[in-house]
């Protein structure tokens, strides 16, 4: 946005919203919204506590493991679907289905089958993240220009050489995009999983603060979580941009 010729960065409007929050909080309009300053104090207070750190650890663990599984299973599956018409025909309708289906409805099933612990949450993360990873990996493989393929063959590259030197890089922007979107979905997945299971991690924390109406603590934990999710999304977008410099000219 430009005012009187001065560029104002996008994030500056957050400052405006923060000020608004502070005012609303100070005016005590609702018990739900304590002033931002007090929430900020609470953030500093609770982050080093063992309760919070263990919640963070549990959440982080499930998140990382779940995503690794989603990537290790999803990327090869997507590549397979991109290269084999048969695999594509078998799996594509299901991948598309699960991409937009309310996966939350499946969490009770997972809970029933795998109990109320980390396994369920890890599986929830996988469930949320994997479909977009598969789909974008497939898209990456299919976007490899036939000219690149022909070029590789005309210079006598073996299949492995062609794969590692050319195809991986050619498909990488889409694969990274899929991983990024998968990671964002995974954040939602880990939280939803924990909310439904509710005895571990942030789910338990929110339940604790909520039941005791500790609004400031609640918002503090929430803001840390949101900040983490946002920073993750931006870091991945940055990584993707570094790779993307050649994405547009691949054709």
């Amino acid at each position, binding site marked *: *946005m430009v005012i009187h010729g001065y560029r104002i960065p996008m994030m500056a409007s957050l400052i405006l919203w923060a000020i608004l929050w502070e005012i609303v909080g100070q005016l005590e309009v609702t018990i739900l919204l304590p002033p931002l300053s007090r929430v900020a104090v609470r953030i500093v207070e609770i982050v080093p506590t063992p309760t919070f750190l263990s919640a963070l650890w549990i959440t982080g663990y499930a998140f990382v493991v779940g995503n690794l599984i989603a990537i290790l299973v999803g990327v090869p599956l997507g590549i397979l679907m991109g290269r084999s018409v048969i695999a594509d025909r078998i799996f594509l309708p299901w991948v598309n289905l699960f991409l937009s289906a309310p996966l939350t409805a499946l969490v009770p*099933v997972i809970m029933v*089958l795998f109990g109320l612990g980390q396994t369920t949450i890890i599986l929830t993360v996988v469930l949320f993240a994997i479909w977009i990873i598969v789909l974008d990996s497939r*898209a990456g493989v299919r976007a490899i220009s*036939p000219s690149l393929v*022909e070029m590789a063959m005309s210079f006598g590259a073996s299949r492995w050489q062609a794969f590692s030197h050319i195809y991986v890089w050619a498909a990488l922007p889409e694969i990274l995009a899929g991983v990024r979107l998968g990671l964002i979905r995974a954040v939602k997945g*880990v939280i*939803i999983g924990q909310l439904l299971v509710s005895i571990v991690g942030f789910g338990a924390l929110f339940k604790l603060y909520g039941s005791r109406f500790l609004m400031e603590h609640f918002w503090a934990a929430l803001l840390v*979580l949101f900040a983490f999710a946002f920073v993750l999304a931006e870091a991945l977008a940055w990584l993707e941009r570094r790779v993307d410099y050649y994405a547009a000219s691949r054709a």
Partner: protein
Amino acid sequence: MVERPSHLSAEPAGGLRLSRFSSFGTFGTRAALIDRPTHPVAAFFNHPLTLRILSALVLFLAWEWAGRLPISPAFPTFGETMVGLWSMIADFSLIRAFGITLQPLAIGLVISTLIGVAIGVAMGLNDKAEWLASPIFIIAQAAPLAALIPLIVFAYGIGLTAKTLVVCIMAMPVIVLNSFAAVRHTPLSLVEMGRSFLASRRQVILRIILPAASPVIFAGLRLGCAAGFIGAILAELLITPTGIGDLITYHRSIAEYPKMYAAILSIIVFSVLFIEVIERVEVTVFRPEKRARR
């Protein structure tokens, strides 16, 4: 001389990437693009609907077989699930449950669509609106908004209002951001064309920008719908079990797993069909040329 239409198979509904799928000759798919008269039986087997039905059949058979394995008592076979489903339809409990679940869902989605598209389009057309609103929605899209559900319960109790609000906060960010991106990515030459033929700003918005933006807006609506469904179910599982959530929790608590699975299956199928309907509406009302492309 007409160019051969590009072979667009299913576009990913998630994310805004719409890659063009080019032919991949060395892997054997080029043959599929050459027009050859196909044998009727082959045509039947290649028809997308046949394939879907076939792969669904395969899945159901696999489910049936897996259910008979002694993995867990909580894993019914496909057959048992179908029986449970039928009995819930027959005693109307399923219909009633849908009726209750769909209320916050429908209201929430309508509100999210109207307000969300309006905000997104406004952001696309106006720099100040964009500056003000976009950081909020960008954070909202990356953030696990489900964490706000306990908060909403404190504020609004456990009734229809709370559940509608949950649907709204889940659905709106993606609708807003898609509408915003759609408006921003209107091809510049189309807008210039409108101006060159003396279109007023209003005419440019209504006759060029909005129709050009409608595919991505509708993609956003489909995503918003999916998120809204998640919100509705979460609301029922977390706040107070009513409707489908109640069916799920109740049958789980009495270990009636076939009916629990049947309820879950029904809501998933319903949401998929609902999203499909949205796509049909888009094609019929707004972008008839897509029908020709199918």
